[in-house]
């Protein structure tokens, strides 16, 4: 991975590393902070997203609201659509793979996709194992509902964590629950004496070295974004205020009445989440948001967030 060669090592480690190194993967996640990553299903939508100020786009065949409605097996996006999107935008292009489907992930890596989302929104391919993400040149983002799940994914090589929320629901309640859970779990760790960390790691079912790191630095070792149910500028501002470092918007934009205006508005509210006057201005004149789902009406097997472990 790195060769020190004849250079005199100077403590900064003047050596080379490539895109497989964790530092380079997390580097791209750092660049996406403060931004909005938008789900798109066509090159035209991708262009709209970029023109609205999206920091990245996520290519998929159907937005979560349609996957929910139409059912069937949801797979990786078609190659033609991803290539079409890569051609028309200059911002990073992400795409989803099914949980555990490392062959889909290898295909996306070969396509030069900038970030791979191993996502519960698609139908899982493996019910016991996630992709071993270390040995890829494309970085991975994974969903999590709590700290243990986040650290299991980071242990497998994820360079970014997002809340799962409840995708395609237009309902922010699950994303809020997951954000509060992750940050609450982190705060609770930071006050534990070090001899209690191994037992806590066991309870969290998380690697003990990562648990020690989080206890020490008081945050995840990778950027922590929000996803799942964001439909309005105020939803985005809420997630940012709760500590998310950027937001993913799935069905919320292209299932609304006026995708262009809504996309711009959510970008604006994400930048200015601390300023209610800006969030107010962003919230005006948007037409209808996507239809929302009351989560009590969803049966357990219809809940996407319970996929993955």
């Amino acid at each position, binding site marked *: 991975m790195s060769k020190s060669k004849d250079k005199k090592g100077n403590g900064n480690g003047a050596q*080379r590393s490539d895109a497989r190194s964790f530092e380079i993967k997390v580097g791209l996640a750092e660049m996406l902070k403060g931004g909005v990553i938008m789900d798109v299903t066509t090159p035209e939508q991708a262009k709209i997203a970029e023109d609205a100020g999206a920091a990245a786009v996520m290519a998929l065949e159907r937005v979560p609201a349609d996957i929910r409605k139409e059912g069937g097996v949801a797979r990786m996006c078609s190659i033609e659509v991803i290539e079409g999107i890569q051609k028309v935008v200059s911002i990073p292009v992400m795409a989803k793979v099914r949980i555990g489907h490392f062959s889909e992930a290898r295909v996306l890596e070969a396509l030069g*996709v900038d*970030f791979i989302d191993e996502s519960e929104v698609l139908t899982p391919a493996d019910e016991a194992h996630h992709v071993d993400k270390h040995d890829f*040149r494309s970085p991975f983002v994974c969903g999590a509902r709590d700290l243990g799940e986040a650290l299991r994914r980071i242990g497998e090589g994820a360079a970014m964590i997002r809340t799962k929320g409840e995708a395609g629901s237009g309902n922010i309640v699950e994303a809020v629950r997951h954000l509060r859970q992750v940050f609450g779990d982190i705060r609770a760790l930071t006050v534990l004496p070090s001899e209690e960390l191994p037992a806590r790691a066991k309870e969290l079912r998380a690697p003990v070295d990562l648990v020690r790191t989080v206890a020490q630095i008081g945050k995840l070792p990778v950027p922590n974004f929000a996803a799942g149910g964001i439909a309005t500028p105020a939803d985005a501002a809420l997630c940012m205020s709760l500590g998310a470092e950027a937001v993913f918007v799935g069905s919320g934009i292209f299932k609304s009445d006026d995708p262009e205006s809504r996309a711009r508005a959510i*970008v604006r509210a994400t930048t200015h989440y601390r300023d209610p006057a800006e969030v107010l201005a962003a919230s005006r004149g948007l037409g209808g948001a996507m239809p929302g789902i009351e989560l009590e009406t969803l049966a357990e097997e219809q809940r996407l967030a319970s996929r993955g472990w």
Partner: protein
Amino acid sequence: MTIERVGILAIQGDVAAHRRMLEGLGVQVLDVLCEQDLNAVDALVIPGGESTTIAKGIARLKLHEALRRRISDGMPVLGTCAGAILLASRVENHPVAVLGAMDVTAVRNAYGTQVDSFAAPVDDDAAPGLEDMRCVFIRAPQLTEPGPGVEVLARVDGRAVLMRERNVIAATFHPELTSDPRVHEMLLAMG
């Protein structure tokens, strides 16, 4: 003039990494999101991130003229990656206006997509004080066709990665993602 307050253009990008670096160097740091913020700082960092997103934010906030004016009045400014693109005079296939503060052409995503991102040390001909600096490139641009007033301070594999023209420093890499403060110290030394 001593630099006491450094602004970071906080529309989008790795603002937090620059903040950590600058606070570690003992200066006060302010997020810049309007003209009033801009007028309250002695120097400015334009961070890494997505150049189209940041440029659209500058346009929406109507900060373009104010930024150009303060930079041409001599305010020290550092742009990293997306920030370097925004400081350039010319950009290949860029859909939005840039600040034109440095006489170079920026080529976006010049190395490829994220699977081609990398880190590498500067070449042996780096300016004094920058020896062995390790540079992190994330979907990096290249800066080409430097004008006569532009000084190339460091190259990696023969390509210019750190340049200075008067009060403007542009890096195609991300010093803020490492623990090496030399590029930020260079900004603060311009006060």
